[in-house]
């Protein structure tokens, strides 16, 4: 039986609805028109025929990604089909890029996260942390922020938010916070969303966009990052942004002094219910800790994907997980999306289209490395608010690598330069699933977040650009 809440009847005038429904076919046609226009009308004598065709495929995919015309992964599949069909890449090569290490790293990370969620280990961790922190309203709020941020170091921020969300729903219900005017309710869900977003940029595990950026980087330049290197580069941003976000949260949403003893009680009750740690949880915890240590200390030697997949095999060998447990938790669509995006990025580079595009856009507008970095980071932040952050990375990475070469910047720096700001979405629900969940709580409206979100974006851009110029050189980047 379907639930009544599952339906919404739109009572706006029918002509508006008709126009809205016509949007998708119209956008599909515009995308095709764009493809045809780039192929037939764009005069680019300095571009190879393959580059010309790759550019047309890229234009089509960017349009579909930006306007959400097709699901992201379907657009990626379209790219994979079109690349060989238009003669940009041989079919064998286009499909082989699905075998990118980044894709398998993501797969491994998903399965490990699934094991943590399914066994209840991640939920237990969340409850234990909350029971330690949650004695007064501010401490509880801080606890939720820190919990989400730190857990996003080890799991995708999406999974962390999904895990915290039901706990917060119970806490707000226990506190009887009215959805319409409860700053405390707003703060709790915002601490969840912003905490996981900010924590999610710290390591390669926090979001799938970083491995995607690494995948494209590796395909195009052969370079990559170790787990520890990436974390060391980005943890200062996470720390400073956490402080900024905390102050913004406290300033824009003053919470008074609500009595949180009921919330504490709810958390304690949940903890009582789950009982002692099971053997399965212990095994998963040990394997997880071992995996993270191996990523940090032997990541370069063994390869990130190899370590992730070896950990997965170990979990199965020890009987700690079953396939059906993880099957539903793995975002197979994302894996398809990545295969396509990496193929497209590689095709743009090999055909010279990325370089040509960079020449005619960022390179011609920018006056030097400083403005290049500023443009790329600003574009990443803006794009990620409007679309999936993976799509933003897929669009910007090939272009940025080409721009780097033209401004004598190390192309390796382009992976964090694109992937990190592309993970910082603080306002709109479409930006990241953590935001979407916070909005679905009913406590937040978009207008509540415009000013604080913009402020946080501004601060994030300033801090990030400062780190790029003053901190990143410690890692060997020269400008």
């Amino acid at each position, binding site marked *: 039986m*379907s639930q009544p809440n599952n*339906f919404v*009847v739109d*009572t706006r005038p029918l002509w508006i609805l*008709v126009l809205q429904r016509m949007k998708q076919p119209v956008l599909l046609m515009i995308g095709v028109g764009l493809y045809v226009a780039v192929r037939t009308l764009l005069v680019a004598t300095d571009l190879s025929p393959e580059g010309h065709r790759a550019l047309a495929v890229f234009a089509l995919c960017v349009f579909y990604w930006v306007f959400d015309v097709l699901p992201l*992964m379907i657009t990626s599949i379209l790219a994979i089909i079109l690349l060989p069909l238009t003669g940009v890449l041989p079919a064998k090569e286009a499909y082989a890029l699905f075998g990118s290490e980044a894709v398998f790293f993501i797969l491994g990370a998903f399965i490990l996260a699934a094991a943590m969620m399914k066994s209840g280990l991640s939920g237990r961790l969340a409850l234990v942390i909350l029971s330690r922190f949650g004695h007064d309203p501010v401490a509880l709020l801080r606890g939720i922020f820190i919990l989400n941020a730190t857990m996003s170091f080890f799991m995708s921020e999406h999974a962390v938010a999904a895990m915290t969300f039901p706990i917060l729903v119970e806490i707000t219900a226990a506190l009887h916070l009215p959805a319409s005017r409860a700053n405390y309710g707003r703060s709790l869900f915002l601490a969840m969303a912003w905490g996981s977003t900010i924590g999610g940029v710290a390591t390669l595990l926090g979001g799938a966009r970083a491995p995607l950026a690494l995948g494209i980087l590796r395909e195009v330049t052969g370079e990559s990052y170790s787990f520890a290197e990436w974390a060391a580069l980005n943890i200062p941003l996470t720390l400073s942004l956490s402080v900024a976000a905390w102050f913004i949260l406290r300033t824009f949403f003053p919470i008074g002094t609500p009595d949180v003893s009921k919330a504490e009680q709810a958390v304690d009750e949940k903890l009582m219910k789950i009982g002692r740690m099971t053997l399965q949880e212990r095994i998963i915890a040990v394997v997880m800790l071992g995996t993270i240590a191996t990523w940090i200390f032997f990541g370069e030697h063994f390869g990130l994907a190899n370590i992730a997949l070896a950990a997965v095999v170990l979990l199965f060998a020890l009987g700690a997980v079953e396939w059906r447990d993880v099957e539903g938790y793995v975002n197979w*669509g994302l894996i398809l999306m990545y295969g396509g995006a990496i193929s497209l990025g590689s095709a743009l580079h090999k055909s010279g289209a990325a370089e040509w595009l960079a020449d005619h856009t960022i390179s011609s507008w920018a006056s030097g490395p400083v403005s290049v970095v500023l443009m790329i980071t600003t574009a990443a932040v803006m794009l990620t608010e409007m679309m*999936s952050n993976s799509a933003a990375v897929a669009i910007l990475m090939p272009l940025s690598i080409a721009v780097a070469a033209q401004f004598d910047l190390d192309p390796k720096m382009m992976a964090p330069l694109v992937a990190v700001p592309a993970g910082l979405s603080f306002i709109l629900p479409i930006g990241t699933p953590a935001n979407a969940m916070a909005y679905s709580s009913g406590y937040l409206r978009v207008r509540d977040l415009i000013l604080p979100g913009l402020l946080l974006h501004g601060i994030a851009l300033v801090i990030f650009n400062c780190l790029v110029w003053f901190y990143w050189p410690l890692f060997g980047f020269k400008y």
Partner: protein
Amino acid sequence: MSPNPGLLKLDLAIRGVSLDQSLRNRRDLFHEPSVRGPIARCLELVLPGEVLVSAPADEAFTADSPYRLTQDAKGFYLETDGERSEVGIVAPPSYYRKKTRAGTPMWRVGSSYGPYIAINPASRCAFSARGSHCRFCDVSNQGVDRTEPISVEDVVETVRAAFADGAIEFVYLHIGYIEGDDSGVQFIEPYVRAIKRHFDTLVAVQLQPPREDRWIDHLYAIGVDAVSYSIQIHDEHLLAEMCAGRVEQVGRQRYYDALAHAASIFPNGTVWSDLIIGLEPAESTQSGIDTLVAMGVLPVLSVFRPLSDIDLRDHPMPSIEDVAPVFTHLFKRVLEAGINMNWVRDLSFAVTPFEARFFADSDTPIPSGLGPLYRSKLGNMAVRNLSKLRRRLRVRQVSDSYGSSNL
């Protein structure tokens, strides 16, 4: 005999028809009142102007009827005051004689009335279980011997047989009162979904208002094309006296609120409410008509008949003089409000605003209207497809909204 088909329908509905000796034993002409309430053992007559009426016959109160049904080699005739006019008889469809695979006689599942099949799949109206049933109702009594609801399979088989007979165009599901926040929406959902899955037809549903409006949205979303929350009696005190269950379990105001919400969700002219004419003063019924029309709801009037197995069996019948002005009022008000009269029409046991045009004042312009178009096969198909299109445009699943931020 009155030449006005509307008046004739009304008069026949009130007084019934007596049968010529030669027709007395023609059981094949009778429609058994297996499902719907305020009707007696009836003949389904088609009057001049294609007006359908469910005329009681063979009931105690029809013995004195001035109308007499006769037959000759050419057809059936209605005789009164020495005048005779030809009428049609809708014979009970052949599916009444069939059984479902589970062995249920199909006449117990559904009854054909004009262009639709009426089905009450529920067991017993919860008002009657609480002893607070409507006093003019006999549906509540009929449910007593059915402890289990009719199965979805039996309903589908019966509807299939009715369509195969060519007996119907659409399906009308009605239940009394089912306790709960949804007042039976979840109960009726599998029937609606199954009918929509198997047949390209319109589905109308009559039930009691749910506590929350979201269940009304739900009803529309699952495929219901027309809905009725029937208030029956507008007068507050009389409603409490006649229908204790409606007032105590649902609340009078909730009927109107639910109707107003339904009218904002369903297409124009597909939300209706029955009002019984003859139990309350005509002014009160007129005021009920005004209230309903103001919210975009179509009032449908059924004339009270003192059937032998209802509490009000001794209540006097209304006279034609009393009720005719109410129909004039009905047509005028619905016309002024611009409510589409073509959806809910051709009901044999009640008078719809579409049929109330026969009572229009000489100064009320009667639009040539879309009636014939709606009745045609092509028109019917267009209506069905427009209804589907409208639903596709209007209904969204909440889970769809998360789609865009999944990655």
